[in-house]
């Protein structure tokens, strides 16, 4: 049996244990997001998925779907806040799209296009963090990290390797490599690892690939991020259980 809630005036049905984000995407309704990924537990850190329920703001990726909920997402008030969040992310790192090899495959860039971010608005931070090119096959450009922890989650939950972590707090928070030397060559990361394929920006790079995919054939050249997120949504609706309700059903 499925219940329903209201999202921007439309009826969305959901399965037990689904979040608002999961139910919305499954129902073909895009809610902008960066740290949410269909294959990982929700994280709730980027706040791009912020929705309004009864005057309160909540993260759609962590909010369990509830019958009768009245949620707003695609409204100018929230989209303006989302644009500001994106602008802050864009200036905090070195996101120079014309010379970035992730351009066209970058979820941050694609989401900024989707939400029509026209200017950086804030002053650039211009971080100057040294790159880690120590691994023979993989290069890390820390200057683009948006701290979504997807690589941390992927390495830990799927690869069982724990290669990445976040260190520091607040403005000094940054990505580190879990090795005594701090260098990627001293980890057991491999090209096939899930952690190699989840970074929404251009931090974790396979060496030598660079710009080998021509303009026009890159991921977001084909279809905008909103449409692709709907394609990637778990469908048919996930049945069964999650950790939280294990044993209840």
């Amino acid at each position, binding site marked *: 049996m499925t219940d329903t809630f209201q999202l921007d005036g439309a009826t969305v049905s959901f399965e037990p244990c689904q979040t608002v984000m999961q139910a919305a995407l499954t129902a073909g309704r895009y809610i902008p997001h960066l740290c949410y990924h269909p294959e990982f537990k929700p994280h709730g850190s980027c706040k791009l998925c912020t929705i309004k329920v009864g005057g309160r703001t909540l993260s759609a990726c962590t909010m369990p779907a509830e019958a009768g909920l009245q949620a707003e997402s695609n409204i100018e008030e929230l989209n303006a806040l989302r644009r500001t969040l994106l602008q802050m992310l864009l200036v905090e790192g070195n996101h120079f799209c*014309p*010379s970035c090899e992730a351009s066209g495959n970058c979820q941050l860039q694609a989401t900024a296009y989707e939400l029509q971010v026209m200017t950086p608005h804030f002053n650039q931070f211009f971080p100057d963090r040294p790159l880690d*090119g120590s691994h023979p096959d993989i290069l890390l450009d820390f200057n683009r990290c948006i701290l979504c922890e997807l690589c941390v989650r992927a390495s830990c939950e799927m690869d069982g390797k724990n290669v990445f972590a976040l260190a520091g707090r607040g403005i000094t928070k940054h990505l580190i490599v879990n090795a005594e030397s701090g260098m990627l060559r001293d980890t057991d990361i491999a090209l096939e690892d899930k952690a190699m394929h989840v970074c929404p920006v251009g931090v974790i790079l396979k060496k030598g690939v660079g710009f080998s995919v021509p303009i026009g054939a890159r991921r977001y050249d084909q279809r905008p991020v909103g449409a692709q997120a709907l394609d990637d949504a778990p469908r048919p609706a996930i049945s069964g259980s999650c950790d939280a309700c294990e044993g209840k059903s």
Partner: protein
Amino acid sequence: MVDTRFALYPPYGTDIPNMNDKNGNLETAAHPENLRRVAIDPVSRVEGHGKVTLLLDENDRVHQVRLHIVEFRGFEKFVQGRPYWEAPVMVQRLCGICPVSHHIAASKAMDMIVGATLTPTAEKVRRLMHYGQILQSHALHFFHLSSPDLLFGFDSDVARRNIAGIAAAYPEVAKRGVLLRKFGQEVIRITAGKRIHGTGSIPGGVNKNVSTEERDYLLKDIEQMIAWSRDALVLVRQLFEQNLDLYNNFGRFKTHTLNLVREDGALDLYHGGLRARDMDGNTLFDHYDSRHYWDVIFEDVKPWSYMKFPFLRSLGPERGWYRVGPLSRVTQCDFIPTPLANQARKAFMAFAGGSVAGATMGFHWARMIEMLHAAELIQELLHDPDLQGNDLVSKGQRQERGVGVIEAPRGTLIHHYKVDEHDQIVRCNLIVSTTHNNQAMNEAIRQVARQYLDGRKLTEGLLNHIEVAIRAFDPCLSCATHALGKMPLQVELLDVEGGVLSTLARSADGAFS
């Protein structure tokens, strides 16, 4: 061990040879303290910010003339630490005017880094991209930037000495300029993915071929482009016939030359060995392996300019400066390997007893010969089935050092990188075309100052003579404002203490105040 291949000559901090001239070459005045300083300061919107300073005495006699260009040194620092495969795309940002040239020169350097020998498809797609760039750049320069000087006169009414004036008086010329340029940009878009900041050329090859649809799309206009390029040559010739004395003598100076030539001595804009000839036509070196350019070229620094002054080692820093670009290439190659351009070259070399080949204004003619050559080559390549090949990238033995040299629209362009075992760039040296021509441009404007300014009150028209001479070289700074007569200029007459005596300013809309 010190790596001399990256050393400056002479090293920073050592004494620079005294350049005070004793033979009136106007580089450095004997007694600057008694002279008025005049600065022509075109504030440009892109990297190439140029400024001319003149020192005049109370009788308006010229004692010193210098062209200063703020060079792109910052980039060589900026690229350090970046992965090598990023360079061909990133370097395009250092010049908004000919990004494709940097894209290709850096790719050639990275071919060496990855030990690649290009596949036929990769080399031909790159060449096509390069010829598209030559075509669009030369069209832009001739039709948009220079034709107002040439068709209206150097000191014609400033209000119409611009592209809008050309469009009104010679609509067909203006239209062809626009469409030739557009065609070149379409070639770039198809090969590089975008008109500017494309990504088509990558270390070891290219990321796409040219589909048959893309080929056919370009083929339908190519005949027209060749015909218009031929017409442009007729126009240039007429201009020379009508103004032979002026064009032949304007800013004329003797110079050594440097350019790439193919193994058989043919003009080749994409690849070849270095050829240098002295001002009397004697060959200094030929087919020199450009990957070891530092053995024959060195860079001098002068206290008054940010830009370095490259020179031919065998002649030394004072005498060894040279000129690069279309005029050097067309006059110094043995022949041009496309029939129409070769015919045009012969006519050019024979014109007026061969004298135009040594004239600064000969640049314009040579540029149009190259535009025709580029159009012919584009046609030739479009009929080559290798463009549709799928073998795009190759790799070999990884190297530490990569040097890429091409003939960019403005002249020889050198990119040189050192990449460490982590695949990160540790050093970079670039010698861009405008830098090669630094001293040569200074010579040309000194000559113009002698010929036209010396002893006369400065006017806008005289000022433009200096610009006309600089513009003949098509340095980045002249294109930076994208429209002739729109370059904001400010000239100040200062007394010895630096007090402003009078000013002459031209705003971006061409108005004088």
